């Protein structure tokens, strides 16, 4: 049974159909990628899956539950965590605090307990901090734990966003252009990190990515969107050879001339 299944999902913005009746599924414990030219509807599709937008048509089923129309925080609670195309950290908070916010859904929030500082509160805080430290160790930010997020270099901010998403202990992690703006070394480190997320935490990964080395290098299944429609799907090799993909990326004529 797939972990996530989108059935005929459609999203309109005025006259524009950003996502047009897309059927999609993700198998558990896989690394998947969505690619497509700029404006193909990739990020809109992400926003539909994470509840930032509600689909106009179709359903999204996650882990056997219909999550269509749920709020982002409810979808996070169901087990989907994400990062953003343009990094959206909590700039004024420290690295640790960013991750602790990511852990919010797993913490028991009780006003009386907080105000009276009951023992259970301290226990929970210590436990949460310990788990965040482990996460920071995993992404390699432990020595910067107390730094304010907005002061981090770009690559570290990307990694912190992943750590923050992992803090909610998701079943599915959505990464929106996670290597954008990274240099080749950082990109290789990031790819290793994505694999480790899957292998060590058993988290299913879905990424939007423009860097074809990353896409072809780590994904097991690639889906191509163009003008809001799914035009191809398959393994990296299948997608690479698909004439419609070549056409979408390089224009009409390129596919025929290659054959």
């Amino acid at each position, binding site marked *: 049974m797939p972990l996530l299944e989108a059935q005929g999902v459609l999203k309109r913005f005025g006259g524009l159909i950003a996502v047009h009746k897309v059927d999609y599924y993700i198998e558990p414990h896989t690394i998947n990628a969505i690619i497509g030219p700029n404006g193909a509807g990739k990020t809109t599709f992400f926003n539909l899956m994470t509840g930032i937008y509600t689909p106009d048509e179709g359903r999204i089923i996650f882990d056997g539950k219909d999550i269509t129309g749920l709020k982002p*925080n409810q979808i996070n*609670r169901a087990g989907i965590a994400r990062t953003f195309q343009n990094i*959206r950290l909590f700039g*004024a908070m*420290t690295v640790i605090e960013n991750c602790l916010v990511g852990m919010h859904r797993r913490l028991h929030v009780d*006003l009386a307990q907080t*105000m009276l500082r009951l023992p259970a509160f301290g226990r929970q805080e210590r436990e949460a901090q310990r788990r965040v430290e482990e996460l920071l160790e995993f992404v390699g930010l432990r020595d910067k734990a107390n730094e304010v997020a907005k002061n981090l270099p770009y690559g570290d901010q990307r990694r912190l966003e992943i750590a923050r998403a992992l803090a909610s202990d998701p079943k599915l992690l959505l990464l929106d252009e996670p290597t954008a703006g990274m240099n080749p070394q950082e990109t290789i480190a990031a790819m290793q990190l994505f694999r480790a997320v899957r292998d060590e935490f058993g988290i299913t990964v879905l990424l939007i990515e423009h860097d074809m080395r990353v896409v072809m290098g780590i994904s097991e299944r690639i889906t191509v969107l163009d003008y809001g429609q799914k035009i191809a799907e398959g393994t990296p090799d299948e997608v690479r050879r698909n004439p419609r993909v070549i056409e979408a990326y390089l224009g009409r004529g390129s596919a025929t001339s290659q054959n």
Partner: protein
Amino acid sequence: MRVFSSKNSNQSVQMSSWRDALPVIFGIAYVLIVFLLLRNLSRADLWFPTYSSILFSLFVFSPFIIFALKIPLELRIVLIAIIGLVLMPILGMQDSFYLELITQIAIFAAMAIGLNIVVGFAGLLNLGYVAFFAVGAYLWGIFTSNANTIVRVTGAQAAPELFWLFIFIGMILAAFTGILLGFPVLRLRGDYLAIVTLGFGEIIRILVSNLSNISSNRRNPINITNGAQGLPGIVSPPLPDFAFQLVESLTNGLGLPVNNPRAFTYQLFYYGLVLVVCAIVALLAARLDNSPIGRAWTAIREDEVAAQAMGVPIVKMKLLAFALGASFAGAMGVIWSARNTFVSPESFSFIQSIFILAIVIVGGMGSIRGAILGAAIVTLLNLLVLKNFSLQINALRNIDWVVPIIDFPIRNWPQQLEPARYERFVFGLLLILMMIFRPSGILPAKRRQMELQREEEISEQEIAADAATLKPEDLLGAQPQQAKEKP
């Protein structure tokens, strides 16, 4: 480190303890000098207004100075407790105006801390905060005033003993009002939110001035708030007899008899009460800040979309911020109306909301110490410094004083330029200067640094290793080592 240094040599121990004692001596000397100078001020002195403004301001800042000293927390708390519980009441016996001022500062500080939860922590600009204060004040006012309100006519008045219960009812009612305001404004941000909350503050004020059947509201069936005339004769809770006797014997024993021991006892009571409430509010706010709730608020302030995507229920968290912030003002409203014995719609004008917001901005958004310091600065400026400046000019004018060096006769100072009339100008100037020089406030909020578990172990090992090779010179600072390196 001190544990290790004691093993090394006596000289270094003396040096370090002498250095440790220096801030303590400084702190105590500062407080004592200011206190004694204040005690020796005479109202007959020509320069009394100036002296008392300066010295009392210095005295009010002394707890902040002590709190900033690098000495153990327990010692700081003891010193601050002495200032608050011993020195301040003595000054109050000498001149009860000082006690009034401090009480006013504490009331504003508690409200600023409450507003800080909404504005500073959660980033929701609220320009109608005084409405929640009004809810608390009118709650106790309506139930105990001697005006002909529906409550008095039907004999449903509350007994003065119920004051303590009404503090909690005031909190709950204000929190409920906060949620009521919160619901419609949840979708708004920034300027739009500010405008709606501003309107809400005005709604509450106009509501209390119209919920009556007197004067312009003659057609209304019942009188609830006594309209624009306000509610007079609001009662205070009864105090036990021994409290009055104790205060009277204390004032006589110290050689500072007060004119009206009963009134003075109540002044002392409200002083103590608002200090306690202010301390509780500060403690609760600090605990909230440093918890999943506080982190969720800050996350909403920083990036609402990301916060929601990270699983923070923003509707719930925003309503919680509104409710908690409002409840602090509600509690203070009940206390304030009892102390003031009179409330009217004018006490809750828009400028009061701005006043509290100015405290938060001057002190530092999201900073609890900042809110208290801001309340002290703004209130002192408003109620002491500017008023005394006017008094000083009048006193000098009466004796035809001439400013030395520039030979300016003070009687030529225009009457229109009375400093007390320029409070809004001075506040505007203060806020502009703050925005230029310290945009994040005098005491900006700091992010809490968390101790990492494994690093802690490492640093302990390092200290132990350091201690093993520590030489007496090391404790004296870096200079001897530099001298060695030079040749």
